[in-house]
């Protein structure tokens, strides 16, 4: 019996406040169907969701941070190897990919807006374009990886340093030949390149998977009746993936544009 008493007495349930009770009746709150029972208000749910997403992105920054830290270290140690290795990367392809990814991010931003103003068609189409540009990025990235594979630039047992030790024999005239030990260090550059772009592409693929699911739900009209949290939070994730690329592109492709003073 004392259970019930202990439960309610000290904690002043809200009904006891007459003023509040009246207030509730005046503004009868209509819960959206996606409202979860353990949140007091929709606003609390939405805030919690977006705060959680920001925290998750923070963990992602730390995750990529390890790779960026390794890049910083080895770039300083082996700058001479990093420059020619970086020069093998195609700036036109990388640049095109940057533009494509920014466009994809643009459509994602449109999607968030469309969900908020409840325009279902705009939402669906902008999600479709977000996906298309995302896939275009992956395809171009695939072409680049294939090129590197053809040149024997995949780190590991099959790694080929020929082009760095003797560039002229491979028809590359604007690179100075590297000593063999420094040429070996290009492998570290390529490992970081594959590690970082690979991890980035993995995040994109996961994002594209989620996007497909969101698209299906958007077509059913779930996000254009006031419940926009998934679109918003996915938008945050997608922009984060964009931003990672915006750091990767200059670090990996444009490293020789502003050479360190020797």
């Amino acid at each position, binding site marked *: 019996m004392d259970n019930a008493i*202990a439960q*309610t007495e000290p904690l002043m349930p809200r009904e006891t406040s007459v003023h509040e009770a009246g207030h509730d009746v005046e503004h009868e709150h209509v819960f959206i169907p996606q409202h979860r029972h353990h949140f007091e208000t929709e606003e609390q749910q939405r805030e919690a969701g977006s705060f*959680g997403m920001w925290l998750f992105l923070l963990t*992602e920054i730390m995750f990529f941070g*390890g790779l960026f830290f390794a890049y910083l*270290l080895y770039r300083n140690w082996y700058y001479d190897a990093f420059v020619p290795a970086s020069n093998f990367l195609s700036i036109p392809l990388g640049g095109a990919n940057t533009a494509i990814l920014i466009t994809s991010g643009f459509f994602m931003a449109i999607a968030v807006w469309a969900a908020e103003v409840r325009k279902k068609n705009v939402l669906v189409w902008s999600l479709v374009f977000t996906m298309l540009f995302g896939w275009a990025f992956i395809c171009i990235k695939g072409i680049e990886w294939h090129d590197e594979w053809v040149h024997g630039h995949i780190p*590991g047992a099959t790694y080929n340093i020929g082009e760095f030790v003797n560039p002229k024999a491979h028809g590359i005239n604007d690179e100075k030949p590297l000593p063999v030990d420094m040429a070996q260090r290009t492998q570290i550059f390529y490992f970081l390149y594959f590690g970082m772009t690979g991890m980035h592409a993995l995040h994109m693929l996961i994002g594209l998977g989620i996007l497909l699911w969101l698209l299906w739900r958007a077509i059913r009209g779930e996000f254009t009746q006031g419940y926009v949290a998934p679109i918003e939070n996915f938008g945050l994730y997608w922009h984060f993936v964009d931003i990672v690329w915006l750091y990767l592109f200059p670090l990996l492709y444009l490293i020789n544009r502003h050479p360190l003073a020797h």
Partner: protein
Amino acid sequence: MSATATTIVNLPDQSTATIPKKNYISAEHGLLSWLLTGDHKRIAMLYLISITVFFFIGGAFAGLIRLELLTPQPDLVASDTYNKLFTMHGVIMVFLFLVPSVPATIGNFVIPIMVGARDLAFPKINLLSWYLYLVGGVMMIATMVLGGVDTGWTFTTPLSTHYLNTHVITTALAIFVAGFSSIFTGLNFIVTVHRMRCPGMTWFRLPLFIWSHYAASILMVLGTPVLAISLVLVLLERVFGIGVFDPTKGGDPLLFQHLFWFYSHPAVYIMILPGMGVISEVVSTFSRKRVFGYTAVAFSSVAIALFGFFVWAHHMFIMGISNYSALVFSLLTMLVAVPSAIKIFNWAFTLQKGSITFETPMLYAFGFMGLFTIGGLTGVFLGSLGMDIQLTETYFIVAHFHFVMVGGMLMAFLSGVHFWWPKMTGRMYPEALSKLAAVVTFIGFNLTFMPQFVVGYLGMPRRYHAYPPEFQVLNVLSTAGATVLGVGYLLPLIYLAWSLKYGPIAGNNPWQATGLEWQIQSPPLTENFTEIPIMDHEAYDYEWLEHKTQHEVTAVG
């Protein structure tokens, strides 16, 4: 309440008391209702069961290690097997027991109730985190069945990447997955503390348990991803030979150390901070006093979390980092002693002039305070550069971190389990037996690890299965202590299980504690509160509690 009162335990009349018919355990039935639950309390129980299993697996490895070390010569196991034993003991205890121990079980159970919420912010992610833990655990078991791993729990490169042919990949993946379980737990706690507090629950009305979990969660969220990426790099190195940590290819093994310890040093604070939260609650409850210096204790948790990120290189003093960097990291390491001491002193002042009673959780808490202090102070020895070079990689360091992790965290965990057991299950454990267990644990612990300080100071290196005969006496003492300790851990397992059915009915608030979790029924309802409470008093306000019970009708009809 006379001055001669020796206990504050206040149980309802056993002849009429019953467990409330409607509670989170009886709400639904069947295995699936547990495996697919979103209820933080049920998930906490799932965690409690699974970490107990891994604790005893890890403990069995520890037993085998101590048995081997009974004699100077290698006789029980081969040297390779010994390497596997201490590796798997370390991996299981660190990643599958200590990291999730208090947060995922007790924290999961009481944090939403303490802040006055119906659940954690993301119940599904909470369940996901348990499944990730389970996947990690199953992969770890697979590793053991397939033949084990022998890198040491630190995965030191290039040993782990080039020189060993055991199941490094499976283990690293297991830790990777379990790491995400810890990230999600931390993320959930942070969002819950920020966004789910009930009206009136300001930051400085939060129980200190919440503050310490908040600090630990920050560490989980910021540190664990770095561990994840360093393990990914070890995996890639092992599978593809990419050379990022391989000196022959220009890689830097020290880079691995930096990345690994960037997580694994904060990880020791992930392990200890939640324990400190338990101690704050227990010490306050059994001294009938508000925690002395509430604000200082609260901020010391955050300070530990903050400093914890800037001391990692003290694990690397003998690895060839620069002298200047070693100097800075040594100084920063000393700084961690300050917030830790703040906590210990404040608990001591909480006890001063309090009405202290010696219930089981309090006995464990006393154990924590003594043993953690010894563990912490020997940490200062190890943080000083000269001493570290003498003592690192000896049994001194083994004794040091076992004092903090086992003497500190495990004591805190057991203290917390006993403290909240009535809330979790609605029943009390046997009082006399549990006090005996607390004392046995304390004696066994000291007997096990005190000699290790001595033997380490004399120069016995860690991670060897053979040693010079003159160290035998101390090792025999240690092994004897381990047996006592084993009994100390088996006892709670047995009587807590017994109490599930036969324990006396606990009622809502057997300890007369002030936390919100004690003002609701035990075991709680699935939704915790029928109405979201309004917090109108400070934390640890025993006067409020007294006034509340003044008007309470204790016997009806």
